[in-house]
């Protein structure tokens, strides 16, 4: 039996024995299992799904066989999804079943461990941003941005329905924002950028008293470190609009503190710490000012005391949430990304502040060094924008970008095609060992 690849005895995770089943059926007065289903004949399903059961080994082999069709590429890819080295201890600790298989902390007395970990996660984001309130996760950066837009409509005193976003914005992020903007009838409009950064005079022309929120990113989707965040924040506040800043925890370890540039909300993806590349699987961070506390979407962990007067943690301000406030909730979110946040907190703690700052500084120097090397290649000009970069940058190629991408894939490397002759290249410590080969390959295909 254990060597068989087929499995035909029901669910291996339903542990009752046949004798137990019989006893239990008798106890409930049922003749057989089927009679327990109170389903009218006319809608009963009497067909088959046609899904064969497999042994555990066969199921694993099947996944291996399917995923074996993925090309083995060294990815110099970023644009919102980043690979940083995740230490083994994160996998080890996060896999403990008391964390992994627990539920949302509605019984805090037996969920103190996860609650404390999430409280620590929130605290780390408070330190990174300088803002007072971090929730314990949204799905990803795009949905966090959508939530920020709806928050802006709730908290802004003057009526206004325009959400201004940068011209350089990941398409997927903008598409999600548009869906969140649909219900509350907000309009999403782009403002221009100049040589990789926000064109502040142009934004000044675009913004008006009907603007609910201005969104900017640093680093931008092209990896450029924005240079005039304070000016953007001032502009937003001149029109009583919220200033929402997109970033990530590694960048925030080094770049200007959001609170110092006037950010009212900080969103972004935090999964690059703790999880790394996972086909877009993310962790939305959402941090805002204390004055908007009661309009925050998602779960919040707070400190309190237990009956023994010891500090204890609990989900709090739940009246904002869907299970209590229903159609007047701040968001419909229920299941979030708590376990991903746990991993991020573990990774951040493992790095410590010096490790985080070192990592962030590496992101600046790696991008700079790689751009310099690519700029030496005939047929390549890098970086396109004469700015400071973080992890990634644009390069101009004489050859069509699509040809560069395809030819590099054949050599075992992946980069982004961003325009007809524009590619984007991302460098982190996980690709460092492959950099020489990558540069050599690009030298060949860029001719």
């Amino acid at each position: 039996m254990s060597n068989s690849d087929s499995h035909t005895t029901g669910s291996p995770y339903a542990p009752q024995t046949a004798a137990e089943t019989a006893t239990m059926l008798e106890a409930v007065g049922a003749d057989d299992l089927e009679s327990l289903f109170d389903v009218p004949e006319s809608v009963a399903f009497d067909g088959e799904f046609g899904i064969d059961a497999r042994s555990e080994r066969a199921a694993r082999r099947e996944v291996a066989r399917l995923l074996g069709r993925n090309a083995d590429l060294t990815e110099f890819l970023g644009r919102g999804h980043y690979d940083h080295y995740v230490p083994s201890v994160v996998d080890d600790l996060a896999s403990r079943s008391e964390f992994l298989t627990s539920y949302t902390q509605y019984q805090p007395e037996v969920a103190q461990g996860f609650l404390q970990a999430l409280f620590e996660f929130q605290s780390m984001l408070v330190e990174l941003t300088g803002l007072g309130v971090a929730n314990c996760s949204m799905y990803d950066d795009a949905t966090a941005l959508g939530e920020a837009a709806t928050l802006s409509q709730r908290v802004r005193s003057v009526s206004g329905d325009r959400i201004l976003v940068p011209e350089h914005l990941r398409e997927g992020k903008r598409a999600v924002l548009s869906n969140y903007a649909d219900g509350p009838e907000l309009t999403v409009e782009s403002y221009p950028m100049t040589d990789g950064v926000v064109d502040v005079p142009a934004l000044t022309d675009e913004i008006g008293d009907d603007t609910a929120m201005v969104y900017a990113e640093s680093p931008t989707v092209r990896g450029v470190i924005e240079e005039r965040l304070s000016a953007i924040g001032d502009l937003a506040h001149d029109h009583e609009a919220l200033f929402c800043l997109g970033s990530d925890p590694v960048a925030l370890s080094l770049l200007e503190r959001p609170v110092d540039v006037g950010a009212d909300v900080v969103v972004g993806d935090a999964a690059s710490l703790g999880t790394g590349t996972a086909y877009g699987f993310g962790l939305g961070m959402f941090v805002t000012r204390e004055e908007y506390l009661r309009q925050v979407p998602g779960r919040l962990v707070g400190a309190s005391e237990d009956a023994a007067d010891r500090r204890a943690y609990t989900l709090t301000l739940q009246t904002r949430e869907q299970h209590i406030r229903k159609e007047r909730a701040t968001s419909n979110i229920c299941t979030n990304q708590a376990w991903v946040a746990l991993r991020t907190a573990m990774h951040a703690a493992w790095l410590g502040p010096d490790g985080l700052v070192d990592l962030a500084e590496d992101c600046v120097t790696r991008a700079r060094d790689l751009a310099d090397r690519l700029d030496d290649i005939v047929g390549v000009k890098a970086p396109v924008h004469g700015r400071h970069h973080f992890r990634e940058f644009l390069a101009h190629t004489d050859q069509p970008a699509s040809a560069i991408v395809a030819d590099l894939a054949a050599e075992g490397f992946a980069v982004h095609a961003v325009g007809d002759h524009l590619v984007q290249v991302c460098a982190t410590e996980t690709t460092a060992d492959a950099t020489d080969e990558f540069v050599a390959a690009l030298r060949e295909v860029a001719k």
Partner: protein
Amino acid sequence: MSFDVPDDLRYLESHEWVRVAGDTAAVGITAFAQDELGDVVFVELPEEGAELAAGEDFGVVESIKAVSDVYAPVSGTVTAVNDRLRDEPELLNEDPFGDGWMLEVEVADESEVDDLLSPDAYRDQIE
């Protein structure tokens, strides 16, 4: 359990009370209401000068696991707001008819008071 229903007040079915003195009325929620809600953790009230319309909601009371709108027993202009509730929402639990008062209103139409429940009628409703 029987709840205090002071005889000098008038009531709404939705558990608000009003104490009329001349053309001014104090408004709050009843002892029964606070008990149903449990520990009150947050009270949202209008600003001074706001206009209330009888029967319309003017604020929100939150406990840990419930949210309730609060309705105006009478129409009028808000002349005072109990600011203590901002930091001490538990006053609604501890002293709903006293320190837990919510608003004072300058009554626009005194005849609206006649439409409210008498103490006996309210007692019947909650028993």
